[in-house]
């Protein structure tokens, strides 16, 4: 039996790349940046952007090829100021908004497409944050969609722009293209073989940021890393995309796959031990903390990707990384009150998804 992952898993590099993202930062000319703007000004920005973006995928430029709004799904405009804390956290856990945005208290809103592959944050650090997400490695597709939205919004709003510095952003590190291209990769084998530091050093030399599961300020929970560009000035959008999709991502993917191959060949017992302990725990635990769940999911995902766990779907494991987060459990089961209730619900959700034992 082949130990290589199935071809569908290699499609989009899903054995290593969980998801990818393209984000654009823009500001509306004539208003102070968000940090400096008064609440009435922020409300005015919100209304201006909302009116310009409209309420469906066509008006925001996502389905440019189709004529008329009939074919386009409606966007959900969510006002964060009136949203309960748990729901704000839910948006953050789904990577649709940043933590800062979820926790703030000033006028702000997010538009989300029904498939959750697009979100538009208004009044985060910048007036406008366009975000396109895709599962697996589909950077070019995400990039095209983000550019279409930029063109649509840029045709109706005056974005703050400077001849020398390009798109102006609240933080000078985002000027120029205002673009972040990033991938969420699962580098479990590189962690086991102690090569993760090498990856981080190489990334630094290439002006890349390496962050944890939830982006800025988060640790790398369970070996998931977000790798994204830091340079946004003196480079073109298309050039960055080529560098990322054509060079960086393939290199990281190849490096992790090689580490997996080495583990299978030379340290199979160690690998099997971690993978089988992980799956046993997730199938049997009655109380499961988030850190432990993410750690074991990481080992199990590695096992599933190298063919040690036939019958365990990698997509199920990917879904569980989101479903086992706190707000998701609490949304699925409103009866959860205590920390222990949450741990029990997390264990139950994992057991149900992976096959309960005994």
């Amino acid at each position, binding site marked *: 039996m082949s130990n290589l992952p199935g071809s569908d898993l290699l499609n989009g590099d899903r054995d290593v790349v969980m998801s990818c993202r393209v984000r654009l930062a823009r500001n509306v*000319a*004539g208003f102070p940046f968000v940090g400096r703007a008064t609440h009435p000004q922020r409300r005015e920005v919100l209304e201006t952007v909302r009116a310009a973006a409209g309420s469906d995928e066509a008006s925001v430029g996502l389905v440019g090829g189709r004529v008329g709004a009939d074919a386009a799904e409606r966007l959900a405009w969510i006002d964060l100021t009136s949203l309960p804390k748990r729901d704000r956290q839910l948006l953050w856990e789904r990577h649709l908004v940043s933590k800062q945005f979820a926790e703030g208290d000033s006028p702000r809103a997010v538009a989300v497409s029904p498939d959750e592959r697009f979100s538009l944050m208004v009044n985060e650090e910048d007036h406008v944050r366009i975000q396109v997400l895709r599962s697996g490695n589909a950077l070019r597709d995400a990039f095209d969609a983000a550019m279409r939205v930029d*063109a649509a919004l840029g*045709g*109706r709003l005056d*974005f703050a722009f400077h*001849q020398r510095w390009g798109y102006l952003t609240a933080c000078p590190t985002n000027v*120029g293209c205002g673009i972040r291209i990033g991938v969420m990769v699962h580098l479990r084998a590189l962690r086991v073989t102690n090569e993760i530091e090498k990856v981080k050093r190489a990334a630094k030399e290439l002006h890349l940021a390496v962050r944890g599961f939830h982006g800025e300020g988060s640790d790398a929970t369970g070996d998931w890393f977000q790798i994204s560009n830091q340079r946004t000035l003196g480079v073109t959008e298309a050039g960055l995309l080529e560098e990322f999709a054509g060079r960086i991502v393939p290199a990281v993917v190849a490096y992790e796959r090689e580490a997996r191959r080495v583990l299978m060949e030379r340290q199979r017992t160690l690998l099997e031990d971690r993978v089988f302990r992980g799956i046993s725990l997730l199938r049997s635990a009655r109380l499961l903390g988030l850190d432990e769940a993410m750690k074991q999911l990481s080992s199990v995902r590695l096992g599933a990707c190298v063919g040690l766990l036939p019958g365990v779907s990698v997509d199920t494991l990917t879904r569980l990384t989101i479903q086992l987060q706190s707000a998701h459990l609490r949304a699925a089961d409103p009866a959860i009150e205590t920390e222990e209730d949450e741990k029990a619900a997390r264990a139950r959700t994992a057991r149900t998804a992976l096959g309960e034992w005994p």
Partner: protein
Amino acid sequence: MAAPFRPCDHCPKPAVVHNTAIVNGQMTEVHLCEEHAQAAGIQMPGQAPIHQLLGQLAQVGAARPRGPSCPECGHSFHDFKTSGLLGCAACYEAFASTVAPVIERAHGGATEHVGSAPTRADDARQRAALLQKLLRELEQAISAEQYEHAADLRDKIKDLRPTAAAGDKDGAP
């Protein structure tokens, strides 16, 4: 030697806290009695642990001039240094000499944008130039007491401002 008597800003009691701050370029003196100082969240010596006193000293230092400010939004250089964020588009010009090296360092030595420009950039530049011209005319009209002409100009300026200019925002792409 006793300090000269100075009443509290809020009551006739003697002030025990004296602070000088510069706000928007204006020097402001604050004198508070013990009670009003506490109400303002300032603790008296002997009540506060040493690290808090040191913190207050740092704040007194911070009340000194906050460096140049952006003429457009009032964001000070101190604000930029502490938050890492600029206040508005004009801050890029107001703090050009400090911001430019920061940008170049952050972007591996790059000195200018080579990527795309917004769809409406040219349009916006033309409008900004027209706006400047109308503002100059408005000033002249007011000083010449041509109020009817000034009112016309004001309407035109209002139409040109970005918020009002988003009038076509409902149109489909």
